[in-house]
């Protein structure tokens, strides 16, 4: 299985899913013209990855500055897939990364956190980039 790398654009986040390091990162803005088309390969990769993974610890880093409503629906589906896998015994940690002073990003993280039962969810504050 290959890692999945999609470079960020003005409207879409950077996707860096590393199947060797077992770190899955989504970083940037997300308001694609067609949300389902953009995230389709992400879900396909994730499903294949979760089917083949064993006991390894998986770290998911989500660092989103802005996302539209359809992206938030898709990201919740993404978190649900992870949560279901975690309830089946996969060891998944999800880090919701937000910049210091970005109260909105923190609030979004808390909203996502409420919906997840089995994933280990961390709200991670990051110092602003200079």
């Amino acid at each position: 299985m290959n890692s999945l790398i999609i470079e960020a654009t003005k409207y879409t986040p950077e996707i860096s899913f590393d199947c060797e390091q077992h770190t899955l990162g989504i970083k940037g803005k997300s308001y694609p013209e067609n949300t389902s088309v953009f995230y389709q390969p992400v879900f396909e990769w994730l499903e294949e990855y979760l089917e083949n993974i064993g006991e390894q610890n998986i770290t998911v880093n989500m660092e989103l500055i802005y996302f539209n409503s359809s992206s938030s629906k898709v990201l919740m589906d993404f978190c649900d897939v992870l949560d279901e896998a975690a309830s089946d015994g996969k060891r998944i940690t999800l880090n919701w990364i937000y910049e210091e002073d970005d109260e909105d990003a923190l609030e979004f993280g808390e909203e996502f956190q409420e919906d997840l039962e089995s994933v280990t969810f961390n709200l991670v504050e990051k110092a602003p980039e200079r």
Partner: protein
Amino acid sequence: MQKENSIFSKEEDTLKTAESLLKGEAVGKETLLKEYKGLLKNYKKLLRQTKTVTRVSDNQQRKLNRILERLGRYVSFQLFKKITHEKGNVEIKPQRKKLTVFFSDLKDFTYTSSHMEGEALSEFLNFYLEIMTQIVIKWGGTLDKYMGDAIMVFFGDPEFTSDEDHALRCVSMAIEMREKMKDLQKKLYDLGYQEPLHCRMGIATGYCTVGNFGSSERMDYTIVGTPVNLASRLETAAEKDEIFISHETWGYVKDKVICDPPKELHLKGFHQKILAHKVVRLKKEGEDNVLLIDDEEKGVNLKIDFSKIPKEEIESIIRRLEVELK
């Protein structure tokens, strides 16, 4: 649109399954129960997600409103409307337009501010600019920029009415600013500002190029052209609490504004002498700046237009009359 809906493809599949079960014949109780459980599970998930999306969306909306409120403080009211109301890219192509341009600053403020602490200076400037900006908004001027204590405003773009109206609104705005400044002087003195502060203003009308100027990184909606330089030079030439208007501006407002007779000024950057009119005040209803005595029987026919004849010449006429009477 249809493609966009496919983010709900799983939910749509669940509905289809439920509907086909109802259409089907003789479905076993066990199958029905299994499908019902599946439907319930999906419904719960959908409700949870809907709640979250609604909250997230409301938060985004609040965030957007906050950003818009802040943006409104940094760009002119008119430009803000253009940015928020127009779809697509806001492209303001440079175009030639007749505008009335206004400049003001505080006389000797550089000297005064050199005695002030940074905090006191910023507090004062914000106080002063806030009050003056409210007057700009009231008269519908486009606030171009602040440059320290200086304010640049123009009339005629993005909203165009008529050249006369732009000039009159601009002069009226300047008069109100000057009146406000008198109130402020007392208030500032009471607040501990030792030096009385005075404004000076310059106004000019003429063709300018208006639009977005700058680089791809940073654009400024502003104007360039001779009237901009002229208004700025007239402001510099004005004494404390004076408003100098160009001859063209005067042409538009002369029936509604009382001005002193024009002066010929040598202004930097202008080869020819420039006629500048000093604004006294707005005319009252039916008021004229002309003295007219017309009595043919008594042989008197006198007309004095105070906006044209300098004070010294009137005094010389009075002296001649006094000599004649003696």
